[in-house]
């Protein structure tokens, strides 16, 4: 039996179960004092990182499947749009026009929520976002957006690298939370991995309820981490033991947070429910810096009009409720929200009343800190690359701006290259 194990048991006898959970994880936390966690034993606090109450938060909304940018931000002033999309084109009269409609673009008719945010100066619409030599495979292009590396889109994600770069070699549990089944690659760092779950109720072991003698051995088994003798570096077992430890810590904090009823009504759709959970966790002041939510269904190869319209309703209504909630909480100033999709869709509709995989598309940034309005020109519908839009701005310039201005990090380290930060924030940020 190794020494750490003996130590754990001694502490347990002296101080009981709560302390055992802290003691067993000291090596992970002791350096967290650099972030203001002065007392490593005070783990069950649900407040934000001590000394940094105004910490900024990023919420990423992933639109999976390739959102049709041209039917999201609609170039209704361009006849070419209607020629390419005789059936799928949104009639000009239905478009929610930006300003007076003089620039010939506007939002999908179901994006009334976003239109309201636009009118309130809380929405930045960045047009024509993409990257060179676009890849039209869902998975590869999604990986490119997640890794921020079009040349070799494998390995770590950009958010994971951000945490790896700022954490002085010690992972911050709960720093990043993804709502959903799978932890997104974007949040995977070498050290830092996201907490992820679909419903907080499932986020604990039920065996402890069976008999009180099971709690202690369960803790020993799951809180040992990779320090248990015989666990070799780089193996699946090492990965599993670390994940088991992270699960124990995160479980306690998160279940407390989401029990609280939100201040505003959220729509009962998938995205609405996910953002409601994020809103609750922000309100509970978890020390989480990045939240990630995902909806899919945007791969509209056939019969696009109806399904895309429903998705637009969902996006608009959920984001509007979320921003209202943050305002009611008084947290709006510290939460930046960003939407993206792996690619847009081809300019021309196909024979199945749908659209095939394309390239550049708009991104939305939301919150009072963004430079409101429409940023960048709409991509040309005639100057195309193999039937697809040419991008106007590299997505890594958006990431760079978020990293530099919002998260106050060195974007060159995270993005492994220099990208000129896009001007997406108002001057005070």
């Amino acid at each position, binding site marked *: *039996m*190794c020494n750490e*194990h003996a130590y754990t048991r001694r502490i347990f006898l002296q101080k009981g179960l709560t302390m055992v959970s802290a003691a067993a994880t000291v090596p992970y936390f002791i350096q967290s004092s650099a972030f203001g966690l002065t007392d490593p034993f005070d783990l069950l606090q649900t407040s934000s990182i001590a000394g940094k109450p105004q910490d900024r938060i990023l919420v990423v909304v992933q639109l999976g499947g390739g959102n049709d940018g041209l039917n999201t931000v609609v170039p209704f002033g361009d006849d070419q749009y209607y020629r390419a999309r005789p059936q799928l084109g949104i009639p000009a009269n239905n478009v929610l026009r930006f300003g007076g409609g003089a620039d010939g673009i506007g939002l999908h008719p179901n994006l009334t929520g976003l239109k309201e945010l636009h009118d309130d100066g809380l929405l930045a619409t960045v047009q024509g976002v993409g990257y060179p030599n676009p890849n*039209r*495979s*869902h*998975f*590869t292009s999604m990986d490119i957006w997640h890794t921020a590396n079009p040349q070799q889109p494998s390995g770590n994600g950009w958010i994971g690298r951000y945490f790896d770069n700022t954490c002085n070699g010690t992972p911050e549990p709960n720093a990043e939370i993804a709502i959903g*089944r*799978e*932890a997104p690659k974007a949040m995977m760092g070498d050290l830092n*991995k*996201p*907490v*992820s*779950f*679909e*419903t907080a*109720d*499932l*986020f*604990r*072991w*039920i*065996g402890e*309820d*069976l*008999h009180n*003698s*099971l709690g202690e*051995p*369960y803790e*020993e*088994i*799951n809180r*040992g981490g990779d320090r*248990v*003798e*015989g*666990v070799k570096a*780089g*193996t*699946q*077992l090492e*990965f*599993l*033991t670390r*994940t*088991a430890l992270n*699960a124990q810590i*995160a*479980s306690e904090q998160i279940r407390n947070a989401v029990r609280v009823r939100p201040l505003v009504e959220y729509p009962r759709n998938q995205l609405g429910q996910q953002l409601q959970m994020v809103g609750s966790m922000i309100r509970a002041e978890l020390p989480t810096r990045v939240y990630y939510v995902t909806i899919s269904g945007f791969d509209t*190869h*056939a019969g696009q009009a109806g399904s895309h319209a429903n998705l637009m309703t969902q996006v608009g209504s959920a984001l509007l409720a979320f921003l209202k909630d943050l305002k009611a909480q008084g947290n709006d100033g510290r939460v930046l929200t960003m939407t993206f999709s792996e690619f847009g869709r081809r300019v021309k509709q*196909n*024979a*199945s009343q*749908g659209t*095939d995989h394309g390239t550049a598309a708009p991104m939305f940034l939301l919150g009072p800190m963004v430079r409101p309005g429409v940023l960048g020109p709409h991509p040309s519908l005639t100057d195309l690359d*193999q039937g697809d839009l040419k991008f106007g701005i590299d997505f890594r310039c958006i990431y760079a701006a978020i990293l530099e201005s919002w998260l106050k990090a060195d974007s060159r380290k995270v993005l492994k290259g220099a990208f000129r930060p896009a001007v997406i924030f108002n001057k005070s940020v």
Partner: protein
Amino acid sequence: MPTATLKPLRPDAFGHWEANHLLRRAGFGGTPDQVRLLVEWGLDRSVDYLIKYREIPTEAIKPDDFRGDIMTPPSPEERLAYRKAQEAQDEVTLERLRRLRQERQRQDRQQVRAMQQWWLKRMIETPRPLEEKMTLFLHGHFATGYRTIENSYHMFLQNQMFRKYAVGNFAELCFQIIRDPAMLAFLDNNESHKRQPNENLARELMELFTLGEGNGYTENDIKEGARALTGYSFEGNEFLFREDFHDDGQKVIFGKRGTYNGDDFVRLILGRTQCSEFIALKLYRFFVNDLPGPVEPAVKTFILNLAREMRSNKYDLAPVLGTLFRSEHFYDEANIAAEIKSPVQLVVEAVRSLKTPILDLNILVDALELMGQDVFFPPSVKGWVGGRSWINTSTLFVRQNLLTHLLTGRLPSGFRGSSTRSKFDAMHLLAHLTKGSDGEYAQTEAVDFLLKSCLGAKPLEARRATLLEFADSNGGRVNNELIIGMLCLITAMPEYQLC
């Protein structure tokens, strides 16, 4: 370091851990008795038993096990009625017809749910584990999702096709996949027309099903392949070649010119070395090691050797799998208990090896979804990524909780279903242990035996100590309650997730 060659394992090296490994990887594990039997049989007979399963009788699947007429397209009369109602702006009739359609969709969703249970039950009960294991592999490989096609019977037909070709000929399966209604609907080829070919099937056929992304083809090959595949469609539950949709013009694929159709396109793909290499890699990841780190040169060479074996057997999978399951490489220490169990593996293996009662299939299917492997609903055409992507902090809890449920009947909130009192008799697991003179099992022996039966490799010393202390704190008598308690703890160990 595993060997790069396909040479077989020495017969005398086939012991408990090797037999256990084979039974888990080529199937879904087994009881301590079954593992003992395999050791007794030896390597060759064990591998033959798993692969030549056609000799083993099993429950036949009949075409009418599920209804094939729920999602049939509207009849000419129905279509006419709908058109008339539309012209007359007869909202009442239109609403009634819409309701009928919705009712069918509801029934169909019920049927796909029943199919999920049916398949899971089959995997748990089958006397031919490799047949179901390969069917699962092919489902993940040619991943088709119900949510997109909304036709449960087409999913059923596809599932039967995978079972038919499970250890059959992969090339023949590829010719069938471009005729499969579920696949044609899923990748939108059913409406692909020579005027506007839909590239979806052609792209995924090469990227995900046969060659691997960017592995020896160009964007132009995709466009030309899409032309070759135009007209490959279906009507009702049958393949249909729509001659008027098909582009019979000249195409250039892989630099070769011809008036290729979809079958020619598949033939050209199968002729590429990259195809056998990609399939060998996929089989390796599924059966041997999911390769979380960089691939060692010896492993790479082994996969290339396996690919050569596949080419010389003209894509016949039985001899290839036979070579794989006999190889020394397969049993190398680096590959034993080196994979993370898929959710299906976790559930099916637990029930098969521990013989826990199946309390409610609904709950098991629900748990599969929460753990990220909702069968018939793969997350995308890429299938399930597997490996570390199965595990995050939350799926780990679902995994632990599901095992606790199987052992005790307890249920966490969030599942559809309710707690039941389990009637699990765990004492049967110890049937071959000898009792002491006091008529009781010795604690240490029971702990060691349970760890050996549940885990894929030698247990960590710390776990043994934890279990012994747990037994002590409960009075030490080895009874049904104590065994169940110990099994709850063993199945909550991080290493229990390994296969």
